[in-house]
């Protein structure tokens, strides 16, 4: 089919109207042509701009890596002695800095590694690789250096971003002692949690489905095992992780509120590394070994809960018919200094298989229930490094989330299943243009296949719950993006970007126009002010109750009736960093306006409801607030203090009589103190103290009796308050953990971790209901889920 035929249609698109396409070929060819056409125009403009500003300085491009393992060190600090010049490595350990001809002393520092200094004689553009040596802990340590260097927070134009190290993930005491990146995210400013212990989080007043969770670029739709209480991200395999809450670069799209980008560690190295843990709920083991030194490496890691096996062994009468597992693997192949390939994969499942003969059963037929929740993802990546610190990344990713629940008794059977499958590719080019400009551009295409929900019933149960199936959906998310980051002076940096989303669902094209702007003004070497604006659009919705989210919530794509969500966010930020003391501060003010948010119609029952689409409502929301984070990254003391003040409201024509109401997780104040203090080389103590304003709830505030339809008695009906009219009680909680390490000179490094979750046994309310009090009067009580829980785990690595 000739594209020329579609010229007129493209003209219609530019008017901002949606086009209904009726031919399958159209769906494929037309949006792709639009992507590439837009891309070429965009690319040419940026290229022209960049070329005009080239000056005569020489670029020093390089890579910082662990001298022993060759692992790339992200966010290492690079400075030029005697000048205010400085930079940091990016997520891949690369950096670039411009110097004039002559001699310069380049210093590199990174926590846990010895500082190195190189004397450079600059004659032209140069590429260097610098290896850092891990500090020998037996020796006297010479200097404490902040890992989050100037570039990361003060110099970098990016605001509203928090990176997390493996150390930070492992220092936080959690339920049952399971290291969990999601629990760490929930302690960051601007992030509030849902029901205690679960993996849902709410960023800057947004909803839980507005967070994009990526594992090596592949979308993860279900982030929790054990009904969400344990994250699927095995901490052994995490290389780096960051969460973006605003000031979104054009590289990212598809969700309104945040991007949690988790990258597994490289499998390259020159020696075998083993890491493992034995805990109360699960154990894990990771093995990383080179197949060819520094050229080819493989990493595999597994985790499984075994409490079911323990109970089977110790008791003939008890059984726990549940277990979860996950497996991660990664292969890295470095073809040469310029090309590197990697393949990573993840598979995880939660299995609940229940069988029981009902009491007093005459026929001894058992009731059976099988519940399987499955996640898996794969990513194939190729990185090409250009000579002058440019790089090109291409990733093909695939991910699946599905669940299948089957229950049966004699001839009665009911099953429910739902699933989403993604296949996508992302191509990204980072290209320095002259000394002051960096171009970042690319294309992303993801195809979604969705089976929202299917119920099948047999026997009598089909009388009550008839078989039903929502229509399968196929949708494509495409985007072309690009941005130019330019230093106008040593103080002023601007990042100007644009993302053109082209989303095709059910024959309808939904274009998303997403400008992104970020500005940084350096007050001095240690502090800067930042401003940003970003627009995001989202075509996937997670359909869940307003009160609770479950692993079996389903994902749903836009339709003619369900429009894409979109948001506009403005931020003003401040960053301060003291390299000498290891302290840093990041603070942001934000305002976010959200359109086409989804909620259910009042009275909708979510059980066995395949016709949920007709019950979905769309409305708007806005949120605003202030957040601050004080961080300390030292050898003795490590941790942070965070505080958020926020408001988040919603307004739907069909809800609350059209009046605005607070979002369910509108938590006014969130505060966390997360600290680890090394008492000695072998003993450390970690603690988390958290304060949360109560979430919002719609309680029963009255009742009345009406005669039932048969006139044979009365039924009691509830009267509810206005939507989310009541704030549950504030909560606070202290968790403590002691870490006892083996002697540093031992070949096998091990540690015991033992602690208490919720030390002073305080409830974190999840709902409220009326109950008879001790004095005989009725009162609203608010139960919590977890009281004081001890935990212990044994960790080792060599």
């Amino acid at each position, binding site marked *: 089919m000739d594209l020329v035929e579609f010229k007129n249609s493209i003209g219609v698109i530019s008017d901002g109207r949606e086009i209904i396409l009726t031919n399958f070929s159209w769906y494929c060819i037309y949006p792709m042509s639009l992507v590439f056409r837009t891309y070429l125009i965009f690319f040419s403009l940026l290229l022209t701009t960049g070329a005009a500003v080239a000056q005569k300085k020489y670029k020093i491009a390089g890579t910082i890596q662990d001298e022993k393992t060759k692992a790339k060190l992200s966010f290492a600090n690079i400075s030029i002695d005697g000048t205010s010049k400085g930079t940091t490595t990016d997520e891949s350990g690369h950096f670039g800095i411009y110097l004039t001809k002559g001699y310069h002393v380049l210093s590199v520092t990174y926590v846990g590694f010895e500082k190195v200094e190189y004397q450079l004689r600059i004659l032209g553009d140069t590429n260097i690789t610098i290896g850092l040596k891990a500090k020998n802990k037996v020796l006297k340590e010479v200097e404490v250096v902040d890992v989050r260097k100037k570039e990361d927070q003060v110099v970098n134009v990016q605001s509203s971003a928090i990176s997390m190290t493996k150390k930070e993930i492992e220092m936080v005491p959690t339920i049952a002692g399971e290291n969990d990146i999601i629990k760490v995210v929930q302690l960051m400013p601007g992030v509030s949690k849902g029901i205690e212990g679960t993996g849902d989080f709410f960023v800057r007043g947004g909803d839980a489905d507005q967070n994009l969770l990526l594992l090596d670029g592949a979308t993860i739709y279900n982030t929790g095992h054990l009904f969400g209480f344990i994250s699927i991200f095995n901490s052994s395999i995490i290389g780096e992780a960051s969460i973006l809450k605003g000031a979104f670069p054009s590289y990212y799209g598809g969700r309104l509120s945040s991007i949690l980008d988790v990258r597994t560690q490289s499998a390259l190295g020159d020696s075998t590394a083993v890491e493992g843990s034995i805990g109360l709920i699960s154990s894990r083991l990771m093995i990383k070994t080179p197949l060819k030194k520094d050229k080819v490496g493989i990493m595999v890691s597994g985790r499984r809960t075994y409490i079911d096996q323990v109970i089977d062994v*110790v*008791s003939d009468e008890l059984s726990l018919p549940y277990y979860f597992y996950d497996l991660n693997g990664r292969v890295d192949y470095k073809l040469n200094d310029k090309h590197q390939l990697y393949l990573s994969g993840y598979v995880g499942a939660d299995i609940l298989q229940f069988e029981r003969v009902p009491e007093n*059963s*005459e*026929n001894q037929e058992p009731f059976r229930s099988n519940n399987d929740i499955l996640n898996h993802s794969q990513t194939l990546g190729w990185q090409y490094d250009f000579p002058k610190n440019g790089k090109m990344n291409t990733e093909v990713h695939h991910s699946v989330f599905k669940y299948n629940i089957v229950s049966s*008794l*004699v*001839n009665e059977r009911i099953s429910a299943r739902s699933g989403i499958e993604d296949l996508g590719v992302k191509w990204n080019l980072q290209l320095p243009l002259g000394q002051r400009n960096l171009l970042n551009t690319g294309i992303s295409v993801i195809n979604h296949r969705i089976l929202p929900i299917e119920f099948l019933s047999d026997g*009598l149960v089909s*009388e*009550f719950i008839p078989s039903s199936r929502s229509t399968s959906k196929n949708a494509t998310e495409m985007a072309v993006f690009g941005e130019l980051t330019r230093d106008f002076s040593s103080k002023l940096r601007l990042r100007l970007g644009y993302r053109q989303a082209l989303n095709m669902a059910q024959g309808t094209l939904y274009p998303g126009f997403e400008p992104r702007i970020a500005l940084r003004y350096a007050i001095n070497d240690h502090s800067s002010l930042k401003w940003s604006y970003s627009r995001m659009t989202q075509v996937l919705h997670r359909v869940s*109750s*307003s*009160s609770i989210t479950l692993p079996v919530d389903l994902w749903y794509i836009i339709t003619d009736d369900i429009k894409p969500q979109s948001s506009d966010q403005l931020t003003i930020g401040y960053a301060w960093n003291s390299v000498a003391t290891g302290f840093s501060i990041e603070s942001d003010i934000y305002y976010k306006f959200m359109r086409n948010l989804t909620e259910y*119609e*009042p*009275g*909708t029952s*979510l*059980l066995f409801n395949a016709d949920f689409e007709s019950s979905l409502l769309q409305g708007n929301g806005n949120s605003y607030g202030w957040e601050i984070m004080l961080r300390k990254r030292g050898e003795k003391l490590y941790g942070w203090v965070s505080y958020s003040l926020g408001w988040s409201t919603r307004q739907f024509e069909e809800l609350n009589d059209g009046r605005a109401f607070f979002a369910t997780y509108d938590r006014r104040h969130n505060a966390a103190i997360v600290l680890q203090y090394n008492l000695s080389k072998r003993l450390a103590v970690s603690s988390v103290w958290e304060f949360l304003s109560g979430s919002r709830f*719609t309680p*029963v*505030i*009255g*009742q*009345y*009796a*009406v*005669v039932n*339809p*048969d*006139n*044979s*008695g*009365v*039924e*009691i*009906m*509830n*009267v*509810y*308050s206005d939507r989310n*009219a*009541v704030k549950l009680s504030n*909560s606070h909680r202290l968790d403590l953990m002691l870490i006892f390490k083996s002697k540093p000179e031992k070949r096998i490094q091990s540690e015991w971790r033992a602690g208490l979750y919720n030390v002073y*046994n305080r*409830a974190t*309310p999840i*709902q*409220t209901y*009326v109950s008879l009090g001790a004095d005989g009067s*009725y*009162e*609203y*009580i*608010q139960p*919590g889920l*977890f009281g*004081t*829980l001890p935990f212990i785990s044994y960790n080792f690595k060599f």
Partner: protein
Amino acid sequence: MNRYAIIVSSLLLLQACQPEPLVLKDVPQAESKMVVSTITDGDNTVGVFLTRSFAALEGFPEEDAEILSKYIVQKALVSISGAGQDALLNELYPGFYASDALSLIPGETYAFVAYDNTSGQQITANTAVLEKAFIEELTVTEYPVGDEVFIQVNIRFQDLPGKNYYMVNVSKSDPNSDPSEVVNRDVHTQLIEEDVDEAMIKEEFVAFLRKVVPGDTLRISLAHISPEYYFYLDQVSGNFIGESLLSEPYNYPTNVNGGYGFFNLHEFDRRKVLFGK
């Protein structure tokens, strides 16, 4: 100590660490409003039961039905007018107002007014009388599933012209029931929406009533109801497993201005059958 005891002890220990629930103060309570329930029968008697809604903190009627007696509206002025008639309803029992002086004429609209002397509140409502539907054929058989016995109902009745809504109720007819068990949810209501004019509607369904066993007498009724009442019942039956975190909070609709409940004037066609015989 055997291993089983160790596990049980451990679980008990963890249970002991459940945090004490917090008490939430100052939750605003619902304003008390009059509630209307209409009770019609085949003898031209129109009855209305008037109560008041009450605050959630007053207690649970499902556990203590006595509480309802405190919220019966007595000595109210209750009237129904329509089709050229105007009837003042007499309070036959506390809260139950009735009149046999009204003729219910299909197609006519009737207005309801109640004035509570105690609170000074007044409520109003309107409803149209619909043509009565009659059961042509009815069979009830056992439907065993495992160790349970359900009720298979086959009912046949003449459809009325136009778009219609019907309800079929199945409940236990028990003259010896405990009057204190006034709260009765053990009723199966089958809703039928009929858009096409059919000579005869055949509806087959299975009902499960907790307190019914073979040998009990069942009361089965058919009524032609208004779309508003159908929608209300549909919402109620949609939450058949009870309101929970899995259903969205919802205040049920009403056609009563200033109050709760429904003012209906539908007529029943009732049958009594012996279940399993």
